């Protein structure tokens, strides 16, 4: 049974599931910046502004910390680190539900351009001087059929629209999958498009409708190469999104544990009641598992492991449910305050539920696993 052999040997590669000292240092720097520049009350307040992206925070991440090009090699203008370090930044951004286009630009768009060996846009994205967005529905799963809502003429003019695009509102360059006149997939870089905000469940990651009306695009790839670049972006994205989901879940756990220690009812902290304690203990176990799964995904992406498609599918099949559970528990265990507009719990709930639908729902990833690990229906 060859499939079985393949996935068992994949597991034999030794994944480093921990954090290096450098990664911990990076985490501390990002956390300190976010605590100073993106306190949760500011994030809450921004959801009611017209400008939902925190561009000042983006500049600080790019210029002060230099974390926008971690996964990009130095010769392409990046920091020459890897997806492991990118994942640590994502954990912290998730923990703060920070409204910056990091996932769209530094993960999805960057992964697509890296797969193509592109040299024009990639340095700009890596330095953070330009923001990129992959113009596909954020719900698109790795392995899904190539999108067909945008058509490209032979002279590179694009027409069509894409709904539910993440991080397009702040984008300087859109990476647009389109179908050519010959019916073949193509990937274009587009700098002029109509980008309209959508009212989105996730208030800290506002989606958009991208409309192209005979818009000029620069051809990046066509045929199998375009298909491969899109799939590489979605697969890397699925593996890395788990780290953002981990940050969200970790916020839910630590905030709820702290609240259970200070909130008193019936003359004692609610965290002394077994009904509350046991739920929090289960949640801690779940977050510990989520951390292992997220590190496994980041490590496989960093090593370019043959195990990456499986690890990415596992990451989304597990992390989606885990982060949703964590935020749902946070709302419930906070009681009334957790259901209010003023408390940030709802922002995390919205992020977790949206992220569970992003890049494929858990059932799609389970179906993908079924193929990858030879457990056919």
């Amino acid at each position, binding site marked *: *049974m060859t499939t*079985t052999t393949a*996935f*068992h040997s*994949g*597991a*034999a590669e030794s*994944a*480093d*599931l*921990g954090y290096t000292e450098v990664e911990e240092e990076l985490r501390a720097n990002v956390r300190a910046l976010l605590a100073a520049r993106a306190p949760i009350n500011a994030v809450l307040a921004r959801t009611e502004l017209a400008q939902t992206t925190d561009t000042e925070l983006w500049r600080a991440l790019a210029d002060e910390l230099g974390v926008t090009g971690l996964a990009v090699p130095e010769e392409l203008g990046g920091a020459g680190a890897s997806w492991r370090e990118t994942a640590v930044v994502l954990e912290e951004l998730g923990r703060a539900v920070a409204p910056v286009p990091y996932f769209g630009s530094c993960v999805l768009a960057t992964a697509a351009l890296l797969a193509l060996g592109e040299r024009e846009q990639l340095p700009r994205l890596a330095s953070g001087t330009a923001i990129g967005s992959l113009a596909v529905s954020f719900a698109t799963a790795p392995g899904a059929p190539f999108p067909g809502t945008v058509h490209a003429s032979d002279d590179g003019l694009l027409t069509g629209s894409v709904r539910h695009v993440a991080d397009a509102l702040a984008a300087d360059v859109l990476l647009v999958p389109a179908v050519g006149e010959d019916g073949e997939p193509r990937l274009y870089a587009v700098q002029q498009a109509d980008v309209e905000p959508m009212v989105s469940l996730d208030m800290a990651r506002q989606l958009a409708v991208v409309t192209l009306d005979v818009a000029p695009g620069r051809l990046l790839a066509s045929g199998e190469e375009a298909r491969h670049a899109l799939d590489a972006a979605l697969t890397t994205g699925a593996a890395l999104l788990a780290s953002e989901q981990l940050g969200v879940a970790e916020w839910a756990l630590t905030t709820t*544990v702290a609240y*259970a*220690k200070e909130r008193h009812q019936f003359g*004692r*902290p609610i*965290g*002394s009641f*077994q009904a*509350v*304690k*046991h739920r*929090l*203990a*289960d949640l*801690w*176990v779940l977050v*510990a*598992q*989520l*951390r*292992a*799964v997220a*590190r*496994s995904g980041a490590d496989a992406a960093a090593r370019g492991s043959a195990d990456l498609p499986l690890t990415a599918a*596992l990451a989304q*099949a*597990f992390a989606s449910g885990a982060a949703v559970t964590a935020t749902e528990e946070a709302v419930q265990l906070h009681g009334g305050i957790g259901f209010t507009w003023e408390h940030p719990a709802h922002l995390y709930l919205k992020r977790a539920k949206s992220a569970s639908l992003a890049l494929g729902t858990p*059932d799609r990833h*389970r*179906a993908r*696993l*079924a193929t990858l*690990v*030879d*457990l*056919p*229906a």
Partner: protein
Amino acid sequence: MDDGLRGAISALLEKYDPATTPVADFLGARYDAGLAWVHFPEGLGGRSAPRAMQQEVNEAFAAAGAPTLDAGRHGIGLGMAAPTILAHGSDAVRRRFLRPLWTGEEVWCQLFSEPGAGSDLAALGTRAVQEEGTGDWIVDGQKVWTSLAHEAQWAILVARTDPDVPKHQGMTYFVCDMTAPGVEVRPLRQATGEAEFNEVFLTGVRIPDAHRLGAVGEGWRVAQTTLMNERVAIGGHAEPREGGLIGVVANTWRERPELRTPALHDALLRLWVDAEAARLTGERLRQQLAAGQPGPEGSAAKLAFAQLNQRISGLELELLGAEGLEYEDWSFRRPAHPSMIDGTPGYRYLRAKGNSIEGGTSEILRGIIAERVLGLPQEIRVDKDVAWKDLPR
């Protein structure tokens, strides 16, 4: 690994061919060379090396085809008695017991739980009274859930030495000779039909004071060393992908297409995902433990594996349908190697029920995680300041 260690291993392998040397002799030589537990002191099977080196040493011996002891038969000795003896035993006790324990010449069991002291272990009532003149301890009481009691030469025992103080303060930890007069072992049969465990009745059993571990009244503290290592031993081992029960069910799925239904398919995939997440968590814990001491994190792994084993073994019976109605054998048996993987589906289903009870119930483990890891306030306790003899029972 440093050159000293590597050299010691090569020298040992050169002198004692793993293929031809009797197991006890080989292990004895490994102990004498300080290559048993490398972090133990010299003369006690170790060389005061960092604990992190142990894994590499084990791997080097495994690569050379060196023998190891059966974890089922010697797990209590190696995993629980040895670290407790090292941490709390007198020098004479360490020298008497560690070597034959390591070589497998002496089997150990654990006399902790009692019919009236399960989750509330500190309520135990087996009495140990010190005899005037000899200083020996005379032990009376009943222990239960004792694996290997019918094969063990020695036991680690916790008994009540002072009933007049609150329960955690009045216990003392001993090494008990299982062949001593007054020790009676009876098989305890489980829901599976077999007797994996025993009841042990202790009547006037004599233990020399030299076989006490730790001070009189310090038994609870000493027992914590044992229990922390137990939880690591149960939940913290490395496993390949599909190495646990999920692999058994996954292979049945692959080999028996006629059993497949869409609902079972989704249930199987959900369990596969959860099992892989738990495996990675165990692996992450193992990577961290390689460098440090066991902590309460082991409780999380044990909790997760108990739940998984129960869900997977339940699904397996549903998958098998009519075959799941059968059971292999209800006759009384004494299994030499109780193994869920090697057992039958019905056996797995029933045996897994014990996973959330043995070694700390899942409820107790959640309490440990909540209080020791998350720092949540303790339960309100009504028994803390009451003398043991005055507790309601």
